[in-house]
């Protein structure tokens, strides 16, 4: 039980290709946070701290065997639901949304827990029913997914609920949901959209969608973000304005330039070349992640890993689509690039799980 043993054990459970790709992304993130904050070393320090915590969390998660994780799937889910219930009853309202729960010691956002908790629960459920999977199981799975989403939509937090829905859907889809059901589901959603538009969405959510379609409707209000971020992206041109030379970012025309809109800073300073590189980097991470998922020995591991990776992709896509003006503005950070500890921890914990799943083969039990 010496240092050598522990470090070898640690390394054994890590995937070096994935690790180096993620490291690359964190390097880019560091450059961008520094630029977007106007060269603030204080912000850089706290970014380093966030990264340190997140990387540590990833390393720890990579050491936790999937079996242990499976044992925790149901308890985490139940606790998550209870906390969401608590939020709905006694949550703190910040900026018009009831998302936080005050535990006396600290304030937490239970929806963050559900980002991993929901796919874990679904993967565990399908895994446990894998020999007799039937239509009923998928209905149960869908219900298990809809409960937390219902709470989160009501907070309201559209971005998070959509992404949790996506992560859950990936589990169900990869678990073998019948194409017929998928087709019916797509039709159902299409039919449901007008109803959701009229009765379920809040005014500000509707406004975001309308503004995305035509930002000039409201150039000083919600349209301002889209217009300014489109200008940042467009004015970056082919090769960009150079690191630390983005005028949109440095003269404060970009809102949230170090968090949700950090991609605009990147686009402005590194241009189309940079964007291509970033897309390739994300694709490589997704590719490597899916490879690891496919090699996972258990259904739980496969479903959970693939869902985590695809959700990671979804975050990236939604964020870049939002910044470049093809998706409505939902509060989704660019994964592993945006400044912010919570998101970074959640994403890297996810990748820790992916690595753990891929590396704990000896203990496979089928």
């Amino acid at each position: 039980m010496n240092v050598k043993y522990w470090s070898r054990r640690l390394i054994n459970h890590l995937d070096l290709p994935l690790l180096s790709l993620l490291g690359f992304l964190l390097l880019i993130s560091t450059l961008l946070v520094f630029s977007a904050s106007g060269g603030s070393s204080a912000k850089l320090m706290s970014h380093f701290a966030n990264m340190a915590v997140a990387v540590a969390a990833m390393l720890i998660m990579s050491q936790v065997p999937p079996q242990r994780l499976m044992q925790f799937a149901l308890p985490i889910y139940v606790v998550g639901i209870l906390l969401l219930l608590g939020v709905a009853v006694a949550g703190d309202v910040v900026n018009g949304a009831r998302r936080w729960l005050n535990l006396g010691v600290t304030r937490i956002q239970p929806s963050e827990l559900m980002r991993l908790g929901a796919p874990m629960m679904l993967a565990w459920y399908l895994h446990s029913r894998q020999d007799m999977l039937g239509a009923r199981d998928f209905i149960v799975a869908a219900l298990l997914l809809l409960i937390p989403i219902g709470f989160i939509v009501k907070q309201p937090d559209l971005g998070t609920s959509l992404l949790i829905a996506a992560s859950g859907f990936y589990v169900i889809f990869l678990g073998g949901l019948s194409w017929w059901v998928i087709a019916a589901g797509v039709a159902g959603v299409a039919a449901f959209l007008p109803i959701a538009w009229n009765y379920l969405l809040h005014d500000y959510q509707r406004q975001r969608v309308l503004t995305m379609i035509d930002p000039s409707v409201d150039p000083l209000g919600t349209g301002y973000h889209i217009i300014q971020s489109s200008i940042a992206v467009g004015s970056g041109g082919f090769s960009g304005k150079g690191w630390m030379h983005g005028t949109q970012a440095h003269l404060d025309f970009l809102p949230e330039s170090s968090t949700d809109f950090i991609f605009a800073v990147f686009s402005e300073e590194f241009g189309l070349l940079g964007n291509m590189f970033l897309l390739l980097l994300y694709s490589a991470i997704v590719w490597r992640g899916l490879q690891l998922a496919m090699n996972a020995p258990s259904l739980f591991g496969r479903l959970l890993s693939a869902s985590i990776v695809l959700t990671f992709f979804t975050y990236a896509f939604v964020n870049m689509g939002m910044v470049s003006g093809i998706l409505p503005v939902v509060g989704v950070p660019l994964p592993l690039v945006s400044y912010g500890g919570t998101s970074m921890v959640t994403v890297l914990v996810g990748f820790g799980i992916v690595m753990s799943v891929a590396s704990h083969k000896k203990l496979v039990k089928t």
Partner: protein
Amino acid sequence: MTRLNTHEDFQRFYIRTRIAAAGAALLFLVLFGRFVWLQIIQYDRYHALAESNRIALVPALPSRGAIYDRNGAVLAHNFSANTLEITPAKTNGLEQTLDRLSAIVQIDLADRKRFKRLLAESKNFESIPIRNKLTEEEVARFAVNRYRFPGVELRARLFRQYPFGDSFAHVVGYIGRVNDKDIEALQESGQDANYRGTDHMGKLGIEKTYERWLHGQTGVEKVEVDSSGKAVRQLSRTPPMAGNNIHLNLDAKLQQVAETSFGELRGALVALDPRNGGVLALVSKPGFDPNLFVDGIDPASWRDLNDNPDRPLVNRALRGVYPPGSTIKPFMALAALELGVRKASDTISDPGYYSLPGSSHRYRDWKQGGHGMVDLKKSIVISCDTYYYQLAHQMGIQRMHDFLDHFGFGRRTEIDLDGEMAGVLPSPAWKKKRFKQIWWPGETIIAGIGQGYNLTTPMQLAVATMAIANDGVVFKPQLIRAWSDPATGRVHYAAPQVIDRIKLNPESLRVVKEAMVAVTQPGGTASAAAAGAPYLIAGKTGTAQVVGIKQSEKYDASRVSQRNRDHALFIAFAPADDPKIVIAVMVENGGHGGTTAAPIAREVMDYWLLGKLPNQPVSVPEPGTEEEQEDSSPADESTLPSVNALREEELRNER
């Protein structure tokens, strides 16, 4: 079974993962397409948008030229002071801000009312002054409390100031805030670019006439700004070019002497230099304080000025039209001689009235019983009406009109001030056009003594008098004497402009001038006013029945009788043999020209020709200087308190 299932599961998972990966790749391709659209195809557009976000052209304002009198006394200048401005859109609650602000800076009701009016005229995101000329203590107090007042800013600004207050309001005029109408006019004349950032421009008087020179050339500063519009750094700068200074022909002291001579009387005085047409004094009483208008007049002061029955806002010298009355007589006499209607020695017998042949209607002379035998000279000296009734009838309205037309009656003098009235020099053609009526012979008779349809401005009378004084040479009356570029110090003099050389027989002129001199000698109508003058004055008194400027004041019994009195007129030039000053005086409801108007002219001439001050002290706020005035010798520069001292005094009062 289990293994098979697992294998199938795996197969399915494998295929579906590939499908998901393909879907992801497709979505990334869409993103890539979007990036190409924004960054390559639409690059030029977004590049331009980013630049226009980043770069702001900030106008660099030129300082406005000053206005001086002929001796360098400052009539209008700028000084720097602190002003408190509010941008309504940036405050959290305008009323609340005003209330809290008034706790640390004095804001009185007039300030509030003026602010309300400016607010109504401007857009929400413009900054509007609430208090001007803050004291240093107020500046310090606000600076400490600044954080409590979002949208309230302290700005150092150049203020226009008119040190003489009322005295030159009708000449120098004032500047005021640029309004929508001004902007339209500027756009039409293509000057709007030069007025970017300028918030004041000339609205009246010299300030308006010479706006182009006074304003200067606006410079441009190209700066990089952040999203809140704050300049981050300067990229380039074209400096502004200060406006030209304007030097007037006016003499500030002469103007004050004239003003003081009027006392409480209403009226106008124009003094010209007959050798070049320079306007030496231009008085319209009562005046008003142009300083009130610079930053928007408060409604109460405006009402006071606008509703005042004395009409202080009307420039009587240019816009007041009055019948010339007997002051027309020298011109009629000249016409008679030049047209050969009369010889100087021709004599009439004046029974005290005149009747048209075949008519019993009597046109009365001002003197009951008449003047007896009257020749041309006597007709001017004692102002015989009958002589001119008869003369007018003989001459006929058309010839009368054509001759008087040379002297500028009924036409604008083209002085370099806006708003001048043309008056009326009646003729049958004019009457037909104006009233669509034919001319009656009786109308010719009263036109002969300057009544009836005749209307002139004091300025017109002065110009016509200049024509006699100059033996027919008429200069355009000119306020501007020179302009100078403050950067180079170069002075350009405005050339005198001859607008007419009337061909007049020297003998006719001699006779008329002699008669006009006799007017101011014992036996003449202005002898009292001219008594003891060591120089010869040629003049003519006049009395005009009240038609006057439009008077729309409310019925006020105590004033009616006073206001129905005749206007007193006097025209003169002196010294008669070598004229250096031409004067036209009009005193509203002043009664007889010889007793109210002529003394004012005398005091002005005395000062101009002899440097002698009137008996009563000139209204200067410094009590100490009055004694010095009386002790000092005439024509001495120190007879009036120095203009600079006066200016400083005024400035001290302002702050």
